[in-house]
């Protein structure tokens, strides 16, 4: 089946570090909408090292409970980046991409809403065209999802035994 994939291309060379994307993201996701601003709650963060000429907008991706040992450095065009600069994940020991009040992970939702916006709010707010919204159609096999579930369950069974997984599943089914 076909699925629309939404992406934001980041042309970091054009970024001037104004952080308007952080402002609008946090305002849009405030409850009620636009009632407050707090860049620390933004699902896009501009990583900034001014004198090294690093301005890098990064979007919050999936939460991962795993700790990452990434400590490598990349030199690109004469500029030294931590590999973490490019990482989109929220994880336990990382401060970025977590709600500062609750500590819950944040994830970019492409501002999906009903009716849909023509583009995410950060893209609209970036008047310098650093953020470029793109949609593309991709062929997705439904079985893939099925496979993933099965793989996950098998891992749980391996770890906890068949009966415990069934019990947990029954409990969850009852609750819902």
């Amino acid at each position: 089946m076909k699925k629309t994939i939404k992406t934001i291309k980041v042309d970091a060379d054009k970024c001037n570090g104004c952080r308007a994307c952080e402002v609008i993201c946090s305002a849009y996701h405030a409850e009620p909408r636009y009632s407050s601003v707090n860049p620390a709650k933004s699902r896009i963060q501009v990583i900034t090292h001014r004198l090294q000429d690093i301005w890098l907008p990064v979007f919050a991706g999936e939460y991962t409970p795993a700790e990452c040992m990434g400590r490598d450095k990349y030199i690109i065009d004469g500029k030294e980046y931590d590999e973490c600069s490019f990482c989109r994940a929220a994880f336990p020991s990382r401060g970025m991409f977590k709600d500062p009040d609750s500590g819950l992970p944040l994830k970019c939702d492409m501002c999906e809403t009903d009716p849909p916006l023509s583009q995410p709010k950060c893209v609209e707010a970036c008047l310098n065209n650093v953020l470029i919204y793109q949609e593309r159609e991709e062929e997705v096999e439904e079985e893939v999802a099925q496979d993933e579930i099965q793989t996950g369950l098998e891992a749980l069974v391996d770890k906890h035994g068949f009966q415990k997984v069934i019990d947990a599943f029954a409990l969850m089914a009852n609750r819902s």
Partner: protein
Amino acid sequence: MRYAETGYNLEIDLTTGSIERVETDPKMMELYLGGLGTSVKIHWDRVGPEVKAFDPENLLIFSGGLLCGTPAFSANRTLVSFISPQTDLLAYPMMGGFWSTELKYAGYDKVVIRGKSPKLVYISINNDKVEIRDASHLKGKGALETQELIREELKDPKVQVAAIGLAGENRVFVASIEQSRSSSARGGGGAVMGDKGIKAIAVRGTKDVNVARGAEFMHHVQDLAKFISHRNENPIKEVMPIMSGVGSPQMMKHIDEKWHTESFAWGNARVRRKDFWTEEIDKSWTKSQTNAIKRFISCFNCPQQCGALICHEDVPPYMMKCFSKLTYAMAAFVDDLDFTWRICKKAFEYGLDSFSTPQILAFAVELYEAGILTDADFEGCPTDKEGRFFWLLDRLSRREGIGDYLADGTYWAARRIGKGAEAFDHNTTKKHEQMNIKLGMFDPLYFLMFATNEKISITQIEGNWPQAPFPSKEARESFVADWPQLPNEKFKKYFLDWEPRGEFANPYYPTPEIASEIVDWMETLHNIDDALGLCAGMGSFCFKPAYHIHNYPKFISAATGMDMDEESLKKIVNRSRNLHRAFNNRRGMSRADEKPPQDHWKHRFPELEEKLLTTYYQFKGWNYDGIPTRERLHELDLDDVADDLEQRGILKGGQDEKDDQNNQG
């Protein structure tokens, strides 16, 4: 819940080491908005006229503006206010960048600092956690270097740091406070900060700033975005390129500097070089600037890019903005403009104002050439122009030898040096160095701005009104055709009638009455921006700007929930304007001090100048001496201020006396 403002100030006493988070009175926002307005009120209430710049009682206030931290574009000004060591009056230099918004997100509108620390410290603000930390390891470090070192120490690249360099530590009267790509520079805030023993203030915040009617507010922001995009695509065609858009004058983007280098004065604001900009210089400078500017940089939440990251040859990277690009090169009278990339790095690290400092150095060179300063004073100084300026810059920042005199600025240095040096102090008003311009014909608008505004520095007073009449009627007509920012239609006629020569030209047109209206309007816009924390490049210092008198009230109403119209907004800023004046009057400022730079214009008109001043004072509701009258203060709910001025004998009671005085002009 408080809207737009956080409702809390941070009060720090460095003498006792006490730190308090103090809830502010919501009434203050209704009366003074925020930013400059509420800061002036604090200074009035707590800093008596006997307090001098380096007394522990002098308050150093770092403030955001009312709209800082909201989604309003370019609402990012940090306003630092204090009694200036140079002028002995209330100074309030502002900087863009990222500091004040971070402060708002940390939960504070202002940091109010009193007292002095016995040793060098820096203040670290992280939401509710506020610490006074040892800074002995930062002593003598550069103002830019310090920002990086503190960020590393606190292990957070999003910490915003305002820091001083060596000049501030040494209480140089023209020392600045540097932060990101911005400087709070005029009037010596860095010296007051250094005197208090503060190397830097670091701030990090992760709290909400609330907006009362968010959806409505965003609607106004979208209108702004449309206007800005429109202006970027359609620059104003009747004015020169650097002034044709929105944002600060675009000196990082525009390369052709024929206008500045040939129209402004070189050296100690003395001589024009009318044939400086040759084809050869144009070519070499184009290459030099294009290579040096690595990237354009914005301030917080601003779609324009008025600053730049500079990487020139072996000079370590730093950031620059606006006219600092040329001030040192022109003052040093060099032929090779590349000098600017090198000296500015050093000057920003020392933390020095790029308007005052170059003139002070050029003043020293003049005194040397005139034989007033001698070889003994210049012992060890290189003889080439560039080397000499580096040497003087170093001396001034360290207060070594003659540098100790120069560090007090042109006015005070001239008086301390004596031997006729006073005659070389020709470009100051109220003891403060002005822009390096010398012109022919007296200009009534600029006369009033130079003479009367509390800001003292002309670049922060002028703004919406073109600096000179347009020669052709067609150009004037096309300019006024699309000018909705004007307060009313009358102003269009003033502009259409204003001509380069003849009856409707300077000095007699605009007439004193019209000049009063125009100057008051421009000043009002600056006062609004300064209360809201908006960049003047988006409002008061810009032709046909994004923010103007007809849309400010919409932003304030939606942000705060207070319903505001143009008249009530004007009344609020008029209140803080008059309180500011009363504050300076209480410190001894009056009509005798209200003068333009001595030789700013070749052609002067003493009688007309007196008439202009008197007419403007009347327009403002001030008496002959430039003191707000009781009637004006009463209209602005400032009766207690009138009482205070009367008790001190500054304001003499009685309507008749005031009228008599006003008629003297």
